């Protein structure tokens, strides 16, 4: 299973980022392989439409779970249609902590 966590930087130790579409990085965690792939978000400064375009990045990387802070309406529509479930990272500070809380079932579903 691929879990995407929005982050301020690269890797498992990066701080989590509350924004979805304008998150600086998407960290894709492969829970079976135990690997982390960080993808720089090219849309941070884009004028608009970042929600659906970010959802496209998740689809392209095969993510089925998103852990973030918040998202807009178009992002929610796209993620929902793509069958990607979204969770709030709550008080987790880093990507690794957010992933751990998710796997333990300690995060609340936002979508």
């Amino acid at each position, binding site marked *: 299973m691929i879990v995407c966590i929005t982050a301020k930087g690269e890797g498992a130790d990066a701080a989590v980022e509350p924004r979805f579409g304008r998150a600086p990085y998407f960290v894709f965690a492969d829970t079976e392989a135990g690997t982390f792939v960080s993808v720089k978000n090219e849309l941070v400064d*884009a004028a*608009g*439409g*970042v*929600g*659906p*375009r970010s*959802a*496209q990045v998740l*689809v*392209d990387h095969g993510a089925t779970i998103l852990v973030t802070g918040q998202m807009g309406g*178009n992002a929610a*529509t*796209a993620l929902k*249609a*793509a*069958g990607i479930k979204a969770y709030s990272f709550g008080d987790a500070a880093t990507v690794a902590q957010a992933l751990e809380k998710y796997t333990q079932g300690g995060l609340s579903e936002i979508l």
Partner: protein
Amino acid sequence: MKIVVASGKGGTGKTTVSANLAYALARRGGVTLVDCDVEEPNLHLFFPGESEKKGVPVPVPAIDPERCTLCGECGHFCRYGALTVLKDRVLFFAELCHSCGGCTLVCPAAAITEVGREVGVVETSHPLPGLTLVSGVMHEGEVLAPKVVAAAKEAAGDEGRIVYDASPGVACPVIETLEGTDFCILVTESTPFGLHDLDLAVQAAAALGIPAGVVINRSDGEDEAALAFCHEHDLPVLMTIAFDREVAAVQNRGGLIARDLPGWEERFAGLWDEVAGRCEVKA
């Protein structure tokens, strides 16, 4: 002759100048007044009357699921996020689409055709003898203001005297309004904000090669800053409207000073003559 009334900043009295100018011209052989402030058109409030409505369609993609291979080309091409390619279908966000047509070009399976979607309407009326009012009205929640502006300009045609009332600011709808016109009247007030935004509007008109002049509105008689700005930028001051109790009273009840106060109709007619003289185009 086609002239634009613009301002850079909202609330400077741009609509006041357009409406009064149009009133004076209607009495002098006719004019077409075009409301290009499509997000908030308000000239019809000065000139009520029955109007004819015509939809403004823009092309948007329609995807044939039989042909689509879900390759993702369209979604990656669209910089506005209007297309998201999922595992089993393509999701289209109509309100994000800018109608560029790129997705139909990049689709390798020829699965995309373009269909029309209405983003606004153009209303045409004849509220006074000699006056044709064309208003562009964008539907709520839409973003393609320039398309509605272009449709309103097209509906107004090319003949005779045309006055375009631009939207505030210097964004795309204003540039679309300025395109192909002969002169730009910039309405300003002598405040720091007014002059800052006037500067932007002056630059926009200059970039498009359109000559411009200034109307100072709500003048308290201390217009040194505005006059210095105009002098510095080689802009003629075409008219000054004083901040006057009588003028304000007419404006507040939604009246036209060119109709309700003596002398103003002549002054607005004079404004047009002044502009015509500067354009060297037959007025």
